[in-house]
């Protein structure tokens, strides 16, 4: 039984010099077989395991992770959470995630520091304005809180922004989702891991998957660096490595793995209280609770598994950021890193069954995966448990690229995060 975290447990442990805290999760050796194996110990994978155990009563679950959990895109993103997507299907899925976010710390008894500080998507020209208004209205019709701010209202909300009146990329207005914001990325992985572990899920780190055992079209196990682990069902949630996994299972994906870069500045006292995103100039910024400016760039234009991108991408992003916030020029970049994001042609994810029976796939989140973590895990758990998608993810099939029922979230969702 995992003891609950609270200010009281903190006080109690403080008195015993913190000598009595238990480990947040066990580090078990893999069993010979499980009902379900989730490949990938990132936020989505751990959330999937958590909801499988919690909502679908599946007892025997393992999460296998090649490195340390939360070490992929979960620990490398810019932690933005919002649900103001254009199309009904996306909106429904991301809004479901948003509702889960709103109770996540309490549900997991782990403070994921979900901060609903609001997300602004800036509009810099007539085209942006038109798309923004269309999206804001679409959001409202989908029951998603969404507002439009004119330039002056943007200025009031973000006093340090330079509206660049008459400039090349003036701020003409912005959409605002007040319920959007940020969360502590590591905490999401750790909170789900602790929660899943408490429900009996085996989390197996430093265990690489080298192949799948497939017998007459049906997956029956996973070949790992710790040997074969049998399973009735296998869910693959490996983001940038989805194609590598699919390749092992004998099929291909409409996915490209490209570098996405981000950086943080040195910490400064609070200077910007919301998340500001600009699609036109491919930049977004927020300030972490520690005081670091968290800045995200656009993706590189080629396939890259190197968890690093080109200098020029960072330079272009910072040029854009410094145009919007000229006072940032004297602040300093402290850390820079890259992730591997799996991008679908229609900028929407795949949450689907696959050509291999009992093998399920959750990928294609591109640059927008973090915000979807709870909803993605929730829907994927359903898909695996019931062997059919929930209506929330019914449209996000692998098959849509054959049928042409694409969910094109390009452009209208600003930077697709």
């Amino acid at each position: 039984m995992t003891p609950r975290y609270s200010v009281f447990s903190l006080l109690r442990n403080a008195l015993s010099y913190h000598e009595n805290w238990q480990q947040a999760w066990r580090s078990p050796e893999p069993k010979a077989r499980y009902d379900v194996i989730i490949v990938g110990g990132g936020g989505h994978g751990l959330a999937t395991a958590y909801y499988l155990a919690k909502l679908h009563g599946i007892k025997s679950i393992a999460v296998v992770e090649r490195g340390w959990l939360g070490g992929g895109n979960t620990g490398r993103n810019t932690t933005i959470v919002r649900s103001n997507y254009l199309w009904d299907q996306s909106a429904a899925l991301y809004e479901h995630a948003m509702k889960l976010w709103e109770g996540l710390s309490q549900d997991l008894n782990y403070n994921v520091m979900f901060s609903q500080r609001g997300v602004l998507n800036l509009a810099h020209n007539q085209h942006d304005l038109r798309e923004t208004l269309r999206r804001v209205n679409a959001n409202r019709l989908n029951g998603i809180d969404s507002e439009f701010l004119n330039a002056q209202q943007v200025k009031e909300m973000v006093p340090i922004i330079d509206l660049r009146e008459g400039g090349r990329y003036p701020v003409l207005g912005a959409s605002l989702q007040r319920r959007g914001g940020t969360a502590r990325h590591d905490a999401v992985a750790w909170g789900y891991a602790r929660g899943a572990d408490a429900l009996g899920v085996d989390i197996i780190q430093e265990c690489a998957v080298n192949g799948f055992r497939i017998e007459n079209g049906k997956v029956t196990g996973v070949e790992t660096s710790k040997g074969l682990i049998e399973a009735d069902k296998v869910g693959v949630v490996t983001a940038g490595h989805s194609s590598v996994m699919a390749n092992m299972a004998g099929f291909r994906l409409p996915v490209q793995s490209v570098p996405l870069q981000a950086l943080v500045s040195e910490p400064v006292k609070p200077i910007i209280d919301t998340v500001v995103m600009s699609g036109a100039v491919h930049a977004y910024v927020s300030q972490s609770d520690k005081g670091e400016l968290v800045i995200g760039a656009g993706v590189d234009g080629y396939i890259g598994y190197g968890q690093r991108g080109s200098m020029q991408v960072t330079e272009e992003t910072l040029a854009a950021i410094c145009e919007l916030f000229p006072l940032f020029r004297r602040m300093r970049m402290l850390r820079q890193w890259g992730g591997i994001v799996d991008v679908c042609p229609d900028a929407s994810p795949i949450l689907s069954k696959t050509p291999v029976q009992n093998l399920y796939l959750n990928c294609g989140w591109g640059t927008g995966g973090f915000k979807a973590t709870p909803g993605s895990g929730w829907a994927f758990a359903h898909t695996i448990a019931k062997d059919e998608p929930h209506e929330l993810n019914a449209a996000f099939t692998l098959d849509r690229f054959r049928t042409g029922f694409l969910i094109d979230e390009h452009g209208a969702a600003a930077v697709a995060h």
Partner: protein
Amino acid sequence: MLQITCPHCGARAESEFHNGGEAHIERPKDPAALTDAEWAEFVFLRDNPKGLLLERWNHTQGCRRWFNVARDTVTYEILAVYPMGSQPPALDPRRYV
């Protein structure tokens, strides 16, 4: 920041180039003969390998010519550059897990 050797202009900065995706994707010669699934495969499905990738690049800010590149998608090392329409040189098919 990659340095790419354009077969015509020589070694140039990545910023002069545009990536055109996986190479040797043959456009079907008899379009009518294909099913939707086969078309979807041609248009959307890609190897997206972690390792050796044969891809197309265009020297957009230079001679504007297209050419093929063999690149390691982990180290980003460019292993070969060869013209459109020709077969790739024999290379060790690096794969990482």
